[in-house]
């Protein structure tokens, strides 16, 4: 019985550990600064997940809406489109960075000034339709930011 309990306990811990590991890791979330009157900007970050999942939605209190967009260069023409989601294959870092994906923040409530913190809620869904919500604080970086600087 004691052994059984131990097994049970171990398996519970095991499950807990797996759940904790299932968290998507968000690294260096940042938002491009705006000037006064500028109503939109982009948020960028790196995402990685121990299991296959998909970023399906972003919410924020800082703007009227947030959409996941993809930038594409076709014959030197820049095209930006909303995407239904971004796939995160297990253990592969997916970057939301200039030249690729970004979270488009539209209808900003206030000017995004360098050093400000913009809260973002990221919603992920795996193939079993299980959802995971992660809150991050994105730091506002200068307008001239090309990509996240080295630490």
């Amino acid at each position: 019985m004691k052994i059984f309990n131990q097994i049970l306990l171990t398996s519970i811990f095991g499950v807990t550990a797996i759940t904790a590991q299932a968290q998507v890791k968000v690294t260096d979330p940042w938002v491009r600064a705006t000037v006064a009157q500028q109503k939109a900007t982009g948020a960028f970050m790196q995402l990685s997940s121990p299991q296959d999942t998909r970023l399906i939605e972003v919410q924020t209190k800082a703007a009227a809406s947030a959409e996941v967009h993809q930038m594409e260069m076709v014959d030197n023409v820049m095209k930006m489109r909303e995407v239904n989601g971004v796939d995160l294959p297990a253990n592969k870092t997916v970057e939301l960075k200039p030249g690729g994906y970004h979270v488009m923040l539209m209808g900003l409530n206030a000017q995004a000034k360098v050093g400000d913190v913009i809260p973002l809620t990221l919603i992920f869904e795996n193939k079993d339709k299980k959802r995971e919500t992660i809150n991050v604080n994105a730091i506002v970086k200068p307008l001239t930011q090309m990509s996240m600087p080295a630490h």
Partner: protein
Amino acid sequence: MNSKRRKTIALLSMLGVACLPLSACKRSAPVFNGIDITGASYGSDFHLTGHDGKTYTLHQFKGKYVLLFFGYTQCPDVCPTALTRALNIRHQLGADGKQLQVVFITVDPERDTQPLLAEYMRAFDPAFLGLYGSLQQTEDVAKEFRVFYKKVPGDNSYSMDHTAISYLYDINNKIRLAFKHEQSAEQCAADIRTLIQTQSS
């Protein structure tokens, strides 16, 4: 004669033809990282309003190199990157950077008002010039510069597809080079240095 051989001969003769004028003017033709569009019939002038309310034409910048491109301020990615590259080009050129006028023409004059453009330019470099026109003027100037742009409606807002090429003009207001978005500030600055050298020699 099989087709492969025929192709090889055709290729060789093409190369031969291509090499002739090249070798003839090898000394004077500078090599650029950007696309050499010297003599292009488009992009000869603009007539638009600056972020300071004044009217501008290309010819006002005679004696300066002009780096010109189109974009819009609500752009989260390509436009700030192009403006940052322009800033870095100016830095890379050192003292010669003052000879380079950066001109940004908005393809979104409905949202890019004069005060917004003024603030946006100032955030990068107070020496940059933001230009805007009416919807019709914007259409005309884009056509003149062979720039494509299109409003793309979204759920809550809209974005603009647009050509992400930067044009470089020499001190005589002649169009010389087209820089792709992917080209680095170093590559662009090197080209401008080459132009400065060829123009002063």
